[in-house]
């Protein structure tokens, strides 16, 4: 049960001039699953550690349930945290690892016993309670770390890349378990990752960060379909969104078109209005289109793009093909896995012009209503 409010938080390490976290503002509702995502070194861990109380806040305020916690030590914040390297106490058994926090809080013996049993049942680690951490596999260790976090019933869970040391398959399993845990515990979660798949599958809301600055805070769906800038657009989604630089021009009939040296794509009515509003006619823009919104079928006959086939990536249910369209970057498109092309073949594709996004060529901001 916790609302967290983060207001204008800055972080400088030591005498460093450049802030590691800059003007961070976020309101987290009770029971929300928030994911911080961003490339390595963008300040996700630092922000999380400030919420935990492990790192000093240079400027600004963090409130848990409307109480300013800037100077509250971690143990008084009623939080628990799961670390990337598990951070299990090597000298203690699994049982004692989980019980540690309760013992520190001087709970009666039978209550500790009960709580540890319950937590270990939820995480299915009952059978190795007497083992030492070194006798466990990575996945088991992670479960113990989760057990240690949930046993105290904190109001806030913090997790810093808890799955990044696990192999791909186990990561997916544990991802599901954490989602389930969140549903069962009905507690606020803040989860740090640089894996966009984790962010997309787990989050109620995603906070995308870059160089210590929040780029966008939104639901996974909106982050994906309406990224606020080219960075977010490029960071979320795999293969990456296609970005094509070109000019906006009006044709003889007065309709807007997106033009490059080799392409001419009609712009959908809704987007045309937007571009006019932002006065982009006769100026350059970046057009963004996701691979799945480009198709082989001539569905979108008004926005056709032609390119030379280069190579393909088969991903089981989908095949992605890469085309040379005279831009620096190859254009990726999703097609049916049964389709095959000869190298160098000329391929015609249709673009779903309703799904195109337009970004400012210099700032990278998306033109929005």
């Amino acid at each position, binding site marked *: 049960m916790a609302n967290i409010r983060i207001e204008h938080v800055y972080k400088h390490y030591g005498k460093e001039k450049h802030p590691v976290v800059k003007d961070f503002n976020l309101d987290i509702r009770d029971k929300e699953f928030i994911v911080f995502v961003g490339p390595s070194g963008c300040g996700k861990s630092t922000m999380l550690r400030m919420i935990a109380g492990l790192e000093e806040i240079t400027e600004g305020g963090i409130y848990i349930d409307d109480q300013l916690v800037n100077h509250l030590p971690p143990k008084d914040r009623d*939080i628990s945290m799961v670390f990337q390297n598990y*951070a*299990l*106490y*090597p000298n203690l058994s699994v049982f004692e690892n989980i019980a540690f*926090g309760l013992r520190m809080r001087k709970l009666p013996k039978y209550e500790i016993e009960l709580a540890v049993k319950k937590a270990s049942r939820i995480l299915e680690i009952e059978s190795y309670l007497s083992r030492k951490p070194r006798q466990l596999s990575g996945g088991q260790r992670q479960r113990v770390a989760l057990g*240690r976090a949930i046993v105290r019933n904190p109001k806030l869970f913090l997790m810093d890349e808890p799955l990044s040391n696990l192999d791909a398959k186990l990561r997916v399993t544990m991802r599901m378990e954490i989602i389930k845990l969140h549903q069962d515990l009905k507690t606020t979660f803040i989860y740090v990752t640089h894996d966009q798949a984790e962010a997309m599958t787990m989050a109620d809301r995603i906070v995308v960060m870059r160089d210590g600055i929040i780029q966008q805070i939104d639901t996974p769906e909106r982050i994906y379909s309406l990224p606020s800038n080219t960075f977010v657009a490029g960071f979320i989604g795999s293969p990456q969104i296609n970005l094509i630089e070109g000019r906006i021009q009006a044709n003889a009939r007065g309709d807007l078109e997106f033009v490059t040296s080799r392409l001419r794509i009609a712009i959908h009515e809704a987007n045309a209005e937007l571009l006019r509003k932002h006065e982009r006619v006769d100026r350059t823009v970046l057009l963004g289109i996701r691979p799945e919104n480009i198709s082989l079928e001539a569905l979108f006959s008004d926005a056709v793009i032609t390119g030379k086939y280069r190579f393909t990536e088969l991903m089981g249910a989908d095949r992605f093909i890469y085309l040379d369209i005279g831009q620096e970057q190859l254009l990726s498109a999703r097609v049916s896995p049964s389709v095959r092309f000869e190298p160098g073949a000329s391929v015609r594709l249709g673009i779903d012009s309703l799904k195109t996004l337009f970004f400012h060529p210099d700032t990278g901001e998306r033109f929005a209503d």
Partner: protein
Amino acid sequence: MNVLLRNSIRRFTLPRLLFVVVMLLFAVFMLLPIVFIVSHAFKPYDELFVYPPEFIVRRPTTQNFIELAQITSGSIIPISRYLFNSILISAATVLLTTIISAMCGYALAKQPFPGRKILFATIVLMLMFAPEVVQIPRYLVVSGLGLMNTYPGHILPLLALPVGVFLLKQFMEQIPNALLEAARIDGATEFGLFLKIAVPVCMPAVATVAILSFQNSWSNLETSSYFMQDDYMKTFPYFLSTLTSNLANNVARQGAAAVATLIVLAPNLIFFIILQRRVIDTMVHSGIK
């Protein structure tokens, strides 16, 4: 069983075998002085003076032990008093030195405070000083503090063990910060972090420091000879050494001397063996990389 044996034999390739043999020889070589001391204590007089000296006793006898017992029974102060002094002093020294070294090492490794670099450099520098260099200043300090003929006079000069601080600081630096942070979130106090996490995780090093400290204090003669004028305040090893000192050209008491050496050495050995098991045990159990 047979398969196991065959497997282990097959694993012994020639370079490996060579390595084992060399290491074995080395180990035997390291063991020689101890073998000699033990065997020496059981030699009858004629064997003690054989030239060239022989390693292994031919006709073991307990005659030397009896001789030592006779000599000691002649002393005015009962031998139990010396033993009591020694045990008390060693126990206190080991306990305090280990605690102090561990706390100091932890602070230097994990608690940033201004000037800790220079403090650590100073401690490392102290490793360079031979004990003889500090004898006179030490005497002045002990007498200045009025610790002559007191137990603190025995204990205090031995408490500072730079090697111990150095060792523990290096070990504690290896503790992942996340471990301490996890404990902090779990509700441990700063002292709890030290006691419940840092010390158990660094148990091999802590035990090593205890061994070093014991060796340092048990066979220490310096405090008894310089700071203790009253006989009843002196230690057991000191007492034994006086019994058998100035024997260079003397035939008498050589047997007692041999036994005395063994008795002074034995606790060191036993203490080491007890703690050594602990050292290896924790090394195996701690999951630290």
